């Protein structure tokens, strides 16, 4: 007898203690997990390992001999500390956009809006911008200093809150639109938000609500085209470390720390009930809704969560550079992150990470390097660094044409791109044909002898009839996907 009972065990114990022990299991199980991954996905695991090792040891390698090599023997396109920090920043964004576009399948062309919101959150809460007040709280700033100065570890959650809230606000009325319209609307937000930041440098208003008056004259709300600077850098009091642009490779590790948390969250979300809901929506939104998935709310969640990742990246960027301005936030930035996701492998966390690192490298180090070398050889040729989007545009066209699932494809997305749609069309057509044939057969039989219908309305026959053909099973090789 098949039972539908549910085991009553509680494998993880109760409460915090249970969770900590589970976490401990996971952490200590890392060597075994690694070994298993190595066996199952050899190439991927090895390349990721190499990458991580390179990343972590790069500062040492660089100062030890790479830089000297590049100076004296042969110039190498070595990324400097700023570039590697931006690899982390864009890595966080790529993972965030991967949630929106890769997991949930929503094309967001205005992702830069949330990047900007994160940056300006840091600018508002950790600079001297509001010079008429002074709020200093646990920050590396003398009390009484004008402006609001909160520490970085408060800024980041605030940025998450701001970006996530705006994501929810923007998404709520628009996520019911179909894919290409949604893309355009998000593009609009991506344009409007920076424009707002650029233009609110001279705001005058005068509101009277009952006894309350809210007024301002020539209020510089957002710093205008010049932006806001300086912005406090992240500061670690115990080690007396400041993670700004002049701090060498230290900010890379701060970025890496945030990046690892981002990867962890994204991975956990992917393998949960909400991750499955996202997959289902992407595959067949209607069926998902019919199976009880609140599709609007689930899409909204993807959109808002993705936005919050960009908020983190923005706050890190602004704090690291010590300044922000709306010029940093253009449509091209949104597209750049999109290319990272597409190139790397849409839906695959490691893929998009690789895409982020590769693209930041190409954009900020490799192309300028080529430009420099070209300058020396043939000064009249155009500088490729200034025409980076010519390459990126071509990459987009080429990727869509030849490998839309990216280089480290998520297997499901690869299957979707490889003709799942034509497959469904074919199957639908076959359905139609079978149905039409079946009806024709029955009609012909009845035309010959109407009493057949009465036989068929009778009780089920006890004998086996070889009537009709069994639909040939279409067994495609099953694929194990653990």
């Amino acid at each position, binding site marked *: 007898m098949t039972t539908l009972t549910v085991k009553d065990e509680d494998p993880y114990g109760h409460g915090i203690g249970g969770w900590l022990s589970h976490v401990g299991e996971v952490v200590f199980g890392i060597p075994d997990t690694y070994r298993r991954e190595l066996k199952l996905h050899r190439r991927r695991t090895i390349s990721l390992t190499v990458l991580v090792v390179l990343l972590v040891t790069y500062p040492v390698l660089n100062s030890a001999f790479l830089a000297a090599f590049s100076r004296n023997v042969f110039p190498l396109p070595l990324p400097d500390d700023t570039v590697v920090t931006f690899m982390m920043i864009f890595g966080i964004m790529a993972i965030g956009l991967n949630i929106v576009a890769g997991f949930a399948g929503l094309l967001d062309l205005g992702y830069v809006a949330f990047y900007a919101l994160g940056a300006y959150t840091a600018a508002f809460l950790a600079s001297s911008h509001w010079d008429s007040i002074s709020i200093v709280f646990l920050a590396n700033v003398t009390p009484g200093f004008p402006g609001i100065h909160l520490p970085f570890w408060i800024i980041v959650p605030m940025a998450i809150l701001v970006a996530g809230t705006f994501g929810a606000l923007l998404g709520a009325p628009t996520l019911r639109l179909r894919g290409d319209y949604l893309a355009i609307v998000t593009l609009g937000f991506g344009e409007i938000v920076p424009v707002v930041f650029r233009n609110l440098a001279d705001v005058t208003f005068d509101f009277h609500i009952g006894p309350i008056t809210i007024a301002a004259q020539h209020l510089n709300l957002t710093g205008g085209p010049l932006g806001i600077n300086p912005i406090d850098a992240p500061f670690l009091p115990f080690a007396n470390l400041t993670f700004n642009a002049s701090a060498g490779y230290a900010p890379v590790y701060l970025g890496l720390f945030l990046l690892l948390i981002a990867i962890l969250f994204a991975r956990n979300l992917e393998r949960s009930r909400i991750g499955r809901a996202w997959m289902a929506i992407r595959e067949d939104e209607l069926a998902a809704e019919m199976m009880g998935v609140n599709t609007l709310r689930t899409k909204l969640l993807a959109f808002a969560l993705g936005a919050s990742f960009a908020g983190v990246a923005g706050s890190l960027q602004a704090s690291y550079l010590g300044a922000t301005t709306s010029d940093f936030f253009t449509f091209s930035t949104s597209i750049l992150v999109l290319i990272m996701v597409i190139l790397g492998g849409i839906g695959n966390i490691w893929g998009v990470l690789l895409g982020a690192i590769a693209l930041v490298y190409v954009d900020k180090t490799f192309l300028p390097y080529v430009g420099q070398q070209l300058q020396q050889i043939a000064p009249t040729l155009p500088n490729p660094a200034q025409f980076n989007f010519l390459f990126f545009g071509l990459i987009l*066209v080429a990727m869509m044409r030849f490998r839309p699932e990216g280089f480290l494809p998520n297997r499901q997305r690869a299957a979707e791109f490889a003709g799942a749609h034509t497959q469904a069309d074919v199957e639908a057509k076959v359905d139609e044909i079978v149905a039409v044939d079946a009806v024709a057969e029955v009609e012909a039989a009845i035309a010959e002898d109407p009493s057949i219908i009465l036989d068929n309305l009778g009780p089920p026959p006890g004998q086996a009839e070889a009537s009709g053909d069994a639909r040939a099973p279409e067994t495609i090789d099953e694929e194990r996907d653990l």
Partner: protein
Amino acid sequence: MDQVIQTFIIGLSNGLIFALVALGYTLVYGIIELINFAHGDLFMIGSMIALAQIAGIWHLSSATSPLVLVGVIVLVIAVTMVITAAINVTIERVAYRPLRNAPKLAPLISAIGMSYVLQNIANLIAGPANKSIDNLFPTTNLLSVFGITTITVTFQQVFVAIVTIPLLIALSWFVDRTRQGRAMRATAQDPDTAGLMGVDVNRTIALTFLIGGALAGAAGVVQILYNNVTVYNLGFRFGLNAFTSAVLGGIGNLNGAVVGALVLGQINAYSDRYLSANWTNAIVFGVLIAVLVFKPTGLLGQQLADRA
């Protein structure tokens, strides 16, 4: 009050140029449900090609005799239209047709890539700075003939109307009355059935891109002769406005595209004049978002069912 009328006239001219470009968007969307992101940049390329001819080949200036001027302009329009039409057909063949069966968003992403490619090619060849030509038309106010001095209607504005309106009429005739136009409408409704009825769907789509490209080219010529200046990222602003026009009027609907464009021409003019050019783009985006969220079928309704 004169201000208002003057702004209206400016808006009219802009609107007509938008209309030519908007038709390209709406035609393509109607037939393959693709938002052709690169269309605005094709328009920019048209203006660049026109500039190259006007300044580089014919060396036109305000001193050129009117007869020669007219003749050359007609030639430039024809040549530019042919070139942009050819470019558009090629782009369709290379970047969109192979993606006919891909998931819906793939061609859109490809179009974004194409947009950047076109911009950068223009930047490569013409440089990042504004490129301008001399004012070719006499600067007299045509209304001064009637004794009106407070409102200006320039030769350029009349020129815009003279070129765009016949083209719009010609397109309308083509789509309604010719066999190929019928094929386009049929393919827009139901490509599979149209194919079964003997329509060569691939050729029809190519034809759509050809026409859209030609119109964009014409719009480019008109633009450079009207504004006397062009730049490699001109396509963004015009593309945005033209696409919003198409959506406002009801994407897929040709009359709607023209109506929407005229409305948007006015919005642009009044925003530039009474607010500030800094905000105009944001306002246009706002209109776009508002239409998509509240009335996605646009003012004149869609000709296609919304295949959600």
